[in-house]
């Protein structure tokens, strides 16, 4: 009973708590980092150096009036934010956050479930997030949100191809679809796949930016063009869910990147003996470190680049990233066969 | 104990739902979706047998069925779009030029 119910429950709650906390601090971090880049302070008032700013924001959003536009499809309008958020959250089920821990005589696995098709699970769950966006845009019964949602989903689907291709290269290298298996494969190889697959890593990164609608690919929400994209008509709590979903997706992307390309909870160069002291730091800390490092790059990029135009974005995705990822896959496959 | 028969009964039910959808709905998009339901019924069958016989072939064929479904959806929806552009309708009762 303890082993089958309570331990997984604890793990699930821990992960959920970690993710939601991370989201909250992610929002703050984004504002802070951007402010620093732009030589400002960012939020300073709520809490020490604005630490509680996001909490306040969330509280505000929850207390705001929840407006449903007239002639909107009520039902869809209500569930669309949830449909965006839930897939993002359940993707964490297969991401190994740490190696298995033993606490109080109980063995806690490092992830909620080690599914043998873990990577595919992440991809497939990720595709479900589109529904929230499309339906949110459609249900608003308004021109801008619909356009924004169509753009957004077209963009996500387009870049998903390239991203999935890079995942396939990782599968080729590791020979398994299990997330834990992939981490172990990196341990065996002694190298993070990010070093072995720089091209794939890069494509994954760019695709990740695009899939989470971040600058320079944030067209669906381009404030100057489409006001606020698919969630124009949303306010209050439901908007908060979309907001949450977006940041959760960012964290999913980062966590997957960490697992696939940055060795998950492994310390750097796990096979180098004299770097063994790095193992002192627990695995989950490494994982957090890498994930936040990756997230930081997201923010950095956001503060640096202008935005692509829609057709340019599509061109980049279809004419550069996808062929490049396929070529990379072919080369990887050849290397695997030949070497 | 759940046997293959249970799955087959489920499959029959789903398939019949698809058939009813195909025969009664007038929106051709929903008709295509009903066809997807039927294909899924077939897939349930295949996977159930695969499980029953402990043989992976059924799953391999289910993959093919999914491929067919994808192709069918792409082409079918393309035709619907083209038709819609010409006739401004997706009502199958108005798609009756192929007669006499």
């Amino acid at each position, binding site marked *: 009973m303890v082993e089958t119910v309570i331990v997984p429950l604890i793990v699930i709650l821990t992960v959920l708590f970690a993710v939601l906390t991370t989201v909250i601090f992610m929002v703050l971090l984004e504002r802070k980092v951007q402010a620093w880049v732009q030589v400002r302070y960012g939020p300073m008032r709520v809490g020490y150096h604005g630490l509680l700013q996001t909490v306040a924001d969330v509280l505000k959003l929850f207390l705001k009036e929840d407006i449903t536009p007239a002639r909107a499809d009520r039902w869809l309008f209500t569930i669309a934010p949830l449909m965006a958020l839930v897939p993002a959250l359940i993707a964490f089920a297969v991401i190994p956050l740490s190696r298995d821990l033993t606490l109080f005589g109980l063995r806690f696995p490092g992830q909620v479930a080690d599914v043998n098709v873990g990577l595919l699970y992440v991809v497939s769950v990720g595709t479900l997030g589109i529904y929230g966006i499309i339906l949110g845009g459609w249900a608003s019964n308004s021109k801008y949100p619909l356009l924004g949602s169509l753009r957004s989903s077209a963009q996500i689907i387009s870049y998903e191809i390239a991203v999935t291709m890079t995942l396939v290269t990782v599968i080729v290298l590791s020979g398994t679809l299990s997330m834990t298996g992939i981490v172990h494969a990196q341990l065996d190889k002694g190298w993070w796949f990010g070093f072995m697959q720089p091209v794939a890593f890069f494509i994954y990164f760019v695709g990740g930016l695009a899939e989470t609608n971040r600058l320079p690919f944030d067209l669906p929400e381009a404030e100057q063009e489409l006001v606020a994209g698919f969630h124009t008509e949303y306010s209050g709590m439901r908007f908060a869910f979309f907001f949450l979903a977006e940041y959760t997706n960012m964290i999913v992307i980062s966590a997957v990147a960490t697992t696939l390309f940055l060795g998950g909870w492994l310390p750097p160069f796990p096979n180098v003996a004299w770097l063994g002291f790095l193992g002192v730091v627990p695995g989950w800390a490494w994982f957090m470190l890498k994930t936040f490092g990756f997230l930081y790059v997201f923010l950095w990029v956001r503060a640096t680049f202008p935005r692509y135009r829609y057709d340019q974005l599509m061109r980049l995705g279809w004419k550069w990233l996808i062929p490049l990822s396929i070529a990379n896959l072919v080369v990887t496959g050849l290397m695997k066969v030949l070497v | 104990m759940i046997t293959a028969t249970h799955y087959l009964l489920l499959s029959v039910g789903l398939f019949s739902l698809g*058939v009813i959808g*195909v*025969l*009664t709905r007038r929106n051709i998009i929903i*008709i295509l979706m009903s066809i997807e339901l039927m294909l899924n019924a077939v897939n349930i069958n295949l996977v159930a047998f695969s499980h029953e016989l402990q043989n992976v072939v059924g799953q391999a064929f289910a993959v093919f069925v999914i491929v067919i479904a994808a192709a069918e959806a792409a082409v079918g929806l393309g035709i619907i779009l083209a038709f819609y552009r010409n006739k401004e309708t997706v009502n*199958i*009762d108005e*798609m*009756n*030029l*192929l*007669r*006499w």
Partner: protein
Amino acid sequence: MDLIWLIPLLPGLGALVNGLVGVRAFGKRTAGLVANAAMAAALALALYAFWQLLSLPADAREHTVRLAAWIPPIPLALGNGAIGGFTVPWGFRLDPLSGLMILVVTLVGFLIHVYSTGYMHGETRGAYARFFAYLNLFAFFMLVLVLGDNFLVMFVGWEGVGLCSYLLIGYYYEKQSASDAGKKAFIVNRIGDWGFIVGIFMVYGTFGTLDFRAVADAAGPMGVEAAGFGTLSIITLLLFIGATGKSAQIPLYVWLPDAMEGPTPVSALIHAATMVTAGVYMVGRNAVLFSHAPMTMEVVAVVGVATAFMAATIGLAQHDIKRVLAYSTVSQLGFMFIAMGVGAFAAGAFHLMTHAFFKALLFLCSGSVIHAMAGEQDMRRMGGLKPHLPITYATMLVGTLAIAGIPPLSGFFSKDEILYRAFLDHKVIWGVAVATALMTAFYMYRLMSLTFFGAYRGPAWEAHGGRADHGHAASGGGHGHGGGGWRGPHESPRSMTVPLQLLAVGAVLAGFVGVPAALGGGNAIEHFLEPSFVARTAAPPGATAPATHEARGLGEAAHAAESKGGEGTGHAAHLSRSAELGLMALSVLAGIVGIAAAYRIFVRAPEIAETLARRWSGAHRVLSNKYYVDELYGATVVAGTMGAARGLWAFDRSVVDGAVNGSGWLTVSSAWVSHALDKYIVDGLVNLVGAVLEAGSFVVRRVQTGLVQNYALVMLFGVFAFVSVYLFVR
């Protein structure tokens, strides 16, 4: 000889270069040069290969080159290898028959290529390159056809030449009639191809292979299906359907006259010299099969003779110079099929060769005439061209005499051989054939007379001084008078006349390879071709062997021994030398009579023609309307099932009425009776059928609601029925 695969490939390359690059980039000179060089190289290779073939001993004159597997054996572990076992190589075979064919194709083809450089020079640059690309492509496919060592490779060539024929007939595609004619040729050919391909299926089903040699060897020991209608008969009949399509025999000949919409060199090359003989070639190639199916042979002979006769009669009344030649071609092809039908495969092939020369010559001459008349094709607007076109006149005369069978020109020998063998086979066929020969001479000389003799009836050129005349306007391409106005009939450029002269030489000399024994010749061509028509297994197909040996009348025992099974279609009779000479004389006489009559009617007293036409107006109308066959097909085949009733009605109107008109000269009363009969009984019946059909379809069409779901419902009902049966009956 191992390089024979290059012979088709070279024109293929030429087509590729001209087609891909030339159409956009080449000037006329380059395009023509590429095409001609490819053909010249093919000709050289063909000559070399032929020489090598000749240098082999007579019984070893067969060489097969297999390039690669086309349909490789599939390593499928399905069943007992039934599917995987189907293999077809890209194989080419050189034997006497194909050797002869490649010589004809490359030689005539090359000359026509040269001719075309002159004939087509008025085209725009891209169209010029396109033309040569098509021509080369045609040569490629034709050579594949004749060199292929199995049915499937042959079929590739077969379909390929059909395609090229379509492309070239429709070359002036902006002209409605030309593109229609192209489509017609293509579609009619498809009907024949259906027979051919079903025949191929049956061949594979029967013999398990598609290789000609293997099929022949396997068929050799089989019994002659003299009594019943067996597998071989069905196969050969199906193959013959294919041949009728390609070689324009009854009932599928209608496309060939229309095919004259193409440029004249095309008519010469494809629709006279080479492609249309593919059917003959194919029958000859499967001589062993055919000789085992005497009933088919009879069909072949009857169809051949009927075609020959019918086409010749139509040719009597045509005014378009090319159409006359087209019907002449159909007629001559009929002759070849007579030869095939009576078992004289070698004679058929021989006639094929001589015909290729003189008919190509005639077509090219007509092209030269058309060229001179700035596109005018109607003979009624020609005449008196002899002083203007001396070379054309001379060469055309040679061609005419050759086709009329005047010794010692080539047509004499080949046609006479056929007539002789027809006589041995069946007297009626022979009789009709001789009559046809007479008519051939007549209409050919009529053509000559109308074109070259008499008074000039064409448009004046000095008075008008321009090209505003109807004659020119009628020409689709405006053959080569690009810049200035038409300045009257004139001789063609050297690039056109030189091929004419060379072909004329060919038309004169080609016959001498087959001088019959009766005239003291060795009939060399027949011995040369013999191995191609026999199975290598020496099992005799019955009692015909001695007779065959006898019939050949040669002393070569060794040769005869190995060819026992081949030619043996059982022409038991053998005539004395004097009788043979008599027959010859008769046929020559027929030719001379024909020419003389034509001379009398059209040169000496042109009014006779008018009188005749008026007197025999019914017949004349039927003839000049080509027996209304086109209309018949148009009404029956083209209009399809929905128009079946109306088709019958049209049949009634055109054929019955035509016949009524034709026989109107009998008596007025009989005409009246027949008219009444026609109107109340025939029409009534036909209309009844139509009405019933129409009423029936009016009722039945209500089932077709156009509602997809109702159709699906019917499907579901079928499922329901099956499941019910399974559930309750089981």
